[in-house]
Every structure is written in C-alpha cells, then in structure tokens.
C-alpha cells in the first residue's frame, strides 16, 4: 500500500528531476508540470483520507502515516484541502508559465518546491517543517532567478530574510521542549511567543521585512514571483495555524496576537499608501499583496474562528488575483518591455487583453466587487465590524490605495494614443495568452460571484483548527 503523503512529496521531486532533463523542451515540460500538479491537486480532494483506494491498480491510502528519520509524516483533514489548493494553484501558474516564458528551470524547480512544501506542511514537529521551509526558500531563490534577468537584489534579500527565520524557529522549538517540562514558567512562554512571532513575521514579509517583495516582482518573471508570493506564502500561513493548533496555549497569549495585529496594521497602511503612489503595475502588485498580507494579520489578531475563515478565504483569493495580474505583466513586458504607467500610455487601444488583465488583476487584488479579491476583503471587513476603528480604516485604506493605484494605471493605459504610436505596427496579442486571460477572467469573476463553490472546502479546513474556539 502506498501512503498518500509520499505521492505528494516523492512524485513532484522525481518528476522535477525528469523535467530538468527535458527542460529545454518548454512546452513538454509545461504540460508535464501542469498535468502532475493538477492530478495531485484533484487527487488530494478525491481520494478518501482514511480508506484504501485503488489508483492505477495500486492501493493508496491518503491518511496513512509514514515515518522518516523517526519523525511522522501524515496528511490530516486540513492538510488535504491545503495540498489540493497548493497543487491546483501551481497547476494554474505552470499553465501560465507555458506561454509566459519564465525560464528553463521554472517547471522543474517549481515542482521540486511543491514537493518540499508538501513535506513541510505534513512534517511534525514544526522544527522539521521550518527546516524544510528554509530549504524550500533557498531553492526558491534560484527559482526566482530562472528568468536570468541578471538582477539579484530581490533574490538575495529573499534568501537572507527567509533563512533568518530559521534560527528563531529553532530557538522556539528548544524553548517549547523546556516548556513541556515546566509549563508554569511564564517567562519561558513569553520567550517562545517572541521567537515564534519573529520567525513568522520574517517569513510572512511583514513591514519592515517586506523589502524583498518589490525587487523580486521587478526582477523575476511575474509568474515565478506570484508562485512565491502565493504558494510559498500560503504554506507559511498554514504552518502558523498548525503551530497554534499544536500548542493551543499560544492562542491565549494576547501579546502574540497584539504584535501580529499591530504589524498587520503597519503593513496594510504602508502597502496601501505605497500602492496609492504607484507609477508601475509592478508596484501595484507588490504593494497590493503587501497590503493584503497586512489585512490578513489584522483579522487573525481578532482571535475568532470567523477571522480565521476570513484569512483563509483571502489566502485562497490571492492567487486568482495575482495570476491575472501576472498574465497582464507578462504580456506588457512582451509588448512594451515595461510595466510603467507612462510607457503603457495608450496601450489599451492596441493590446486590449493585456490592459484588461492588468486592470482586472489590480482591482481584484484591491478587493473591488464582483471580483474574487472582494470575497476575501469583504469577509475581513465583516469580521472587523466590532474591532477598533484604526483596524477597519487600515483595511478600507488598503483597498482604496490599491484601487487608486490601479485606477491611475487605467487612466494611462486608455489615454488616446499618440500619432507616432498609431503609426507603429502593433503585432496581435498571442491567441493562447488571450485564451488564458479569458479563462482567468472567468475564474476571477466566477469565484467573486459564486464564492459558495469553495465554501464547503473552506468550512472543512476551518473546522480542523480549533485553537480559537477552545474555551
């Protein structure tokens, strides 16, 4: 019998090696990577957790535990939904990568990252999860440079900040062992809280540790940057939830959530303000996602199950918005070699789908209805209805800031084109990219109008995390 957990770790890693061999054949690599990620994503949803299922004539049990180096790897009820989400999002990004030309190593490294992230998600105790997450982050550094732009500022900052989180987690793990022997020591509990907070703040790219986000989006292929900003980031969020679930006494540590909420407020405000003053769609994406992270932390700080559900919904909505924006950025770079508003002036008349992807992606990231981003932002705003006004204002401000930045871009993109621009010959937008843009619009509007399609999955994940509902 094959333990399901091995499928999600070993298969992506093995296929990654195969893809590395054929990485020059980009179309083949894209199809294999998309297919493997999609099959595993659907498999995570379809296979029963605690019953044996037959797959290709072999017995597979999704929830069967596996022991590696004396540590247990097991998929729980929440993990399967999260794994499904990760693999399906990755499949979507691999599909975009097929036409976006993100570099030869995008597909093999992307799959290897998925395999390692799956291992991090199911590894217990969290010390090993954090070690695996660090190894993944180091691999992601190379992944971000797959476009070979030659600029390494963002990747280096990402590498430094992600690896700096590891010492904090290792110290927290040691202190947790001590705390198990001496559970009444409040000083120890406080130190654990501080170490864990420091680690997660670094991993989540919260202000002032956000300095890698903009350079990464500027220098890397948009689809690779979005992969890191969504897939890697989602695992960090779920690692935080797993830690809170494993050590329920942490959720009663008010200081931890006060710190996270304050940093979330700062992040949302900074993200919103910087997005407001954007002059480039790269800035809209970078600061929009920063504001989104901040809003998530503010809502998590409310310490309610509804807040947790809102954070998860926002985490689910983010890849959809960013995927559309990545498509727009890729097309803009292909056509105009830039994503600056000034250089895109009048572009909407020649490249309407590119312009539409940039604008729809920006508005969805801002949380404007009826797009997917609105679902997450609206649920966050509802949770904050009873919160102190600065938090509500920060979330609304973040929405307005990102929307204003996108609006300014819209103003440039649909300016009347100059005579010289009219005289130039503009090649048609690639049909396959247009098809991907249309498909992404269907998803972004569809999920925005009918969020109920993900409701049952979301409910089952939220019900697995009981740390906020415990008396």
């Amino acid at each position, binding site marked *: 019998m094959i333990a399901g957990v091995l499928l999600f770790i070993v298969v992506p890693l093995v296929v990654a090696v195969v893809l590395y061999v054929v990485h020059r054949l980009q179309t083949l690599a894209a199809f294999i990577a998309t297919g493997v990620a999609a099959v595993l994503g659907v498999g995570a949803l379809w296979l029963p957790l605690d019953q044996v299922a037959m797959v290709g004539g072999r017995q597979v049990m999704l929830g069967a535990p596996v022991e590696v180096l004396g540590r247990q790897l097991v998929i729980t009820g929440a993990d399967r939904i999260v794994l499904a989400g990760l693999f399906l999002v990755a499949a979507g990004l691999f599909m975009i990568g097929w036409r976006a030309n993100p570099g030869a190593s995008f597909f093999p490294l992307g799959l290897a990252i998925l395999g390692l992230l799956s291992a991090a998600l199911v590894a217990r105790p969290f010390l090993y999860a954090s*070690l695996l997450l*660090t190894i993944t982050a180091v691999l992601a550094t*190379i992944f971000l440079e797959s476009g070979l732009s*030659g600029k390494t500022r963002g990747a*280096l900052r990402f*590498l*430094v900040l992600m*690896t700096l989180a590891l010492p904090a987690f*290792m110290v927290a793990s040691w202190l947790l062992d001590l705390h198990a022997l001496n559970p009444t020591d409040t000083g120890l509990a406080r130190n654990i809280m501080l170490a864990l907070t420091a680690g997660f703040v670094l991993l989540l790219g919260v202000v002032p540790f956000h300095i890698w986000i903009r350079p990464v989006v500027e220098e890397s292929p948009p689809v690779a940057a979005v992969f890191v900003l969504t897939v890697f980031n989602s695992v960090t969020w779920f690692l935080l939830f797993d830690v809170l679930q494993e050590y329920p006494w942490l959720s009663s540590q008010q200081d931890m959530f006060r710190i996270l909420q304050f940093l979330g407020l700062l992040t949302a405000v900074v993200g919103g303000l910087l997005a407001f003053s954007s002059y480039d769609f790269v800035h809209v994406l970078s600061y929009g996602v920063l504001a989104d992270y901040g809003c998530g932390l503010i809502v998590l700080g409310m310490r309610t199950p509804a807040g947790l559900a809102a954070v998860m919904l926002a985490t689910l909505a983010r890849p959809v918005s960013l995927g559309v924006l990545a498509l727009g950025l890729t097309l803009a770079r292909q056509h105009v070699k830039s994503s600056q508003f000034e250089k895109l002036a009048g572009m909407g008349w020649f490249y309407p789908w590119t312009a539409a992807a940039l604008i729809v992606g920006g508005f969805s990231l801002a949380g404007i209805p009826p797009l997917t981003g609105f679902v997450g932002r609206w649920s966050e705003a509802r949770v904050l209805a009873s919160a102190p006004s600065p938090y509500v204002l920060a979330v609304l401000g973040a929405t307005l800031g990102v929307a204003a930045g996108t609006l300014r871009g819209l103003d440039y993109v649909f300016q009347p084109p100059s005579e010289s621009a009219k005289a130039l010959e503009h090649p048609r937008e690639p049909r396959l990219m247009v098809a991907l843009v249309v498909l992404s619009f269907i998803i972004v509007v569809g999920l925005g109008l009918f969020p109920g399609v993900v409701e049952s999955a979301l409910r089952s994940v939220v019900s697995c995390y009981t740390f906020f509902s415990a008396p």
Partner: protein
Amino acid sequence: MPTLTEILARLAVVPTTVTLLGLAATAGLIVAITDWRACVFALATQYVLAGLLLTRVIRPEIAAIKTLIGVMICVVLYITARRAGWGKLPLEEEDRPSRFQLVLMLGVPFRVMTALMGVALAFSAALKLSLANVPLEVSFGVFTLGLMGAFAIALADEPFKGGLGLLTLFTGFELFYSSIEQSLAVVGFLGVVNFMIALAISYLTTVHTVAESVEESEA
C-alpha cells in the same frame, strides 16, 4: 594518516583566547575587506576555528562533520569566485586609482570601523546577556559571528559578500544551537541548509557576474 576527528582533537590544545581572537579576526576580515579571495580564506579559517570551539560543547565527531561541511562550502565558493573573476574591478590600467584612493573608494575605513564596533558590541553583549546552557567563551563566539554576519549582510551590495555574511551569521547561530541541542537529524538538516545557501549564493553570484559582463561588453 590521522582522521579529521584526531586532527581536531590535536588542535583542541589551541587556547580558547586564540580561537576567539581568530574568530573575531576572520569575521572582521569578511566585513572589512572587499577582496573575495581573502574573504573565502577567512571563511574557511572561521569554520575550522568554530569547529575547535564546538569541541568544547559537543562531541568532536559532530564538530568535525560541521567543519567538513564548512570546508566543502568554501570549496564551492572558491570555485564560484574564481569563475567570476574574483569580483574584479573593471578598471583600465591608465584609469587605475592609487592604492589609497582605492581604499577610500571601497569604503574600507568605514568597514574597519564597523568591524571594530561589532567586536566591541559582541564583547559587551557576551558579558551582559548570558545565554542559557552556553559557556562564556562560546557566547562570545556566538555574538561575534552573529553581529559580524549581520553587519556583513547590511554592507553587501552583491550576492557573494552578502552570502558570506549570511554564512557567518549561521555559523554563530550553530555555535549557540549546538550547545543546547545535539540531535543528529538536526545537525544533518542544518548541514543541508548551509550547503544549499552556499549553492544559492554561488548561483546568484554567477548570474550577477554574467549580467555585469554583458552590460560592460554592451557599453
């Protein structure tokens, strides 16, 4: 032929003060100078000295493994630096500034001051902030490498020097963590993390250098 463990055991007679001074000097070199060749040599020496210091808190075999990983990392970085032309300055013979001007251009006085400040801060931190379960001499090593690593990262403007800073900082952390946790699995994972960091730095340095040379040739 003596094993690595035996070599470390023989070297363990080196006084702690000398080891600590050596650690401070090598970390200081990584912060203060911009010559890649000397920096790789300093990092290799630092790994050996850290291994010596580790023999005071963990089994010599584990210290030897950590030293070996460090030496392998230095080999990777040496090859990278060599292929990248040692981070050479693209200066023509006639444009070459005097040695004094070069020192000022590279900000060496500022870097030296930073390194000295790092040592002073580390010394006072080791005396004032006692680390639980860690001997004082190891604490000094932890703070020295940690602070110097952070300073080296902050002063770096390219991946190679930034990476050396990150590895220095990690060596400092490993000095601390090895004193409190000696699980072999964690040692193995940390070795993998360190080695992967070195590979990532190597990759980033190569990409950075190739891009720079393309820009130069285009100019």
